[in-house]
């Protein structure tokens, strides 16, 4: 390989300004964060809540958080991996599961704040645009949607979670442009299509086409569904039951976990300051005793 001059000199490193840690990790969009967190100064310490939705490969995380200098405080959280408690056995990251997670979080927060009777939200998920009506006694719980770094295209699953939270009774400012089923030409939301997505209709349709055309692919792709015995036609019923179960008891269930196993330690444990000082003193004393012994030998000779 030819000799290439070193590109990044010492001067480069001296002048380099690192971006914020979470920006380096690619996890936080600070431009959006500043705008979401900034509270009017004449509202002093009133918290401004964010409805945070994040998707991992196998899970959905929905949280209500408020920011503080010490770190954000999570008021309530809901995960898609909790949905088995409510009857959902497979498909934890699709649009329907996102709806369930948003709904679960909304009901959980309202129950926590004792507003659940006042703000029932939309019990029958119809897919239409629904906003909470403020009741006479208390104002609805307001949060702002925080999508993170995802590209907000029409039909994205975060808007499924948003719909779930809206139907659950939260007040989240939104428009219907990005819900699944919004027609760009006619510029209006088709509630039928949205309802299909909320109840997993799109998944059921794909299941049906695969069973007809490519049965092997159906076996591999929907293996979990087959294992749990879920059929394309029964999905809507299942989701209806999940919604009902969520509304019945949205409290988080604590699971019993055994204490973690003790593993063999392969690397040395770091010493504390006291231990290091004691080691040094012992070493110096040992050295001194050797020197004294040598001196004594010389004196004797």
């Amino acid at each position, binding site marked *: 390989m030819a000799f290439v001059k070193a590109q990044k000199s010492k001067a480069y490193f001296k002048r380099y300004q690192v971006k914020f840690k979470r920006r380096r990790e690619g996890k936080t969009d600070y431009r959006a964060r*500043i705008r979401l967190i900034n509270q009017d100064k004449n509202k*002093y310490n009133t918290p401004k809540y964010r409805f945070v939705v994040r998707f991992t490969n196998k899970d959905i995380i929905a949280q209500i958080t408020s920011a503080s200098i010490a770190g954000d405080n999570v008021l309530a959280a809901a995960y898609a991996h909790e949905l088995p408690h409510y009857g959902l056995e497979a498909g934890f990251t699709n649009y329907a599961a996102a709806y369930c997670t948003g709904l679960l979080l909304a009901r959980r927060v309202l129950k926590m704040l004792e507003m659940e009777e006042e703000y029932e939200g939309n019990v029958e998920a119809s897919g239409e645009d629904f906003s909470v009506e403020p009741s006479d006694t208390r104002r609805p719980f307001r949060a702002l949607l925080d999508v993170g770094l995802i590209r907000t295209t029409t039909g994205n699953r975060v808007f499924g979670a948003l719909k779930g939270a809206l139907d659950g009774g939260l007040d989240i400012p939104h428009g219907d442009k990005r819900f699944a089923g919004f027609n760009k030409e006619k510029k209006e939301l088709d509630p039928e299509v949205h309802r299909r997505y909320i109840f997993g209709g799109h998944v059921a349709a794909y299941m049906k086409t695969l069973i007809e055309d490519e049965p092997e692919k159906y076996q591999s792709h929907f293996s979990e569904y087959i294992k749990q015995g879920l059929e394309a036609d029964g999905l809507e019923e299942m989701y209806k039951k999940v919604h009902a179960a969520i509304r019945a008891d949205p409290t988080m269930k604590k699971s019993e976990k055994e204490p973690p196993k003790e593993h063999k330690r392969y690397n040395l444990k770091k010493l504390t300051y006291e231990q290091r000082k004691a080691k040094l003193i012992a070493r110096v004393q040992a050295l001194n005793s050797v020197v004294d012994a040598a001196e004594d030998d010389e004196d004797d000779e």
Partner: protein
Amino acid sequence: MPAGHGLRSRTRDSFSRPFRKKGTIALTTYLRTYKIGDYVDIKVNGAVQKGMPHKFYHGRTGRVWNVTKRAIGVEVNKQVGNRIIRKRIHVRVEHVMPSRCSEEFRMRKIQNDKLKAEAKARGEVISTKRQPVGPKPGFMVEGAMLETVTPIPYDVVNDLKGGY
């Protein structure tokens, strides 16, 4: 062409961001709350052009007299001629930080209240007044060798040897 005395004249260095601190502003500036009566330092953040105070106020400390949606009203002393005027300006929160000028006083107040409460419980009267540092106490000098030095009488013959 003459120099020009515009609003931001002579601010090339004072309004510029420090070395390796450019870019996104840390979120604590937006999360801090200010109440009327707090002391604040005004330090202009060149990255935010809205709501900047005039360069005179850069480095001044004042008290908050008004709180609006995104800005704070600060009352700063300015000497104009032979008098000091209390000027009221509005500054966005990015150009303001809480002042520590009265921190020592507040800590001392809390400490003194505690000491007084303890003394009252014991039944004795204490003074929490600060005393100025007095003269240092006397001490014995250790390991000094006394050397008596006397002047030698002036010797005309020898001292004039060099120059004459």
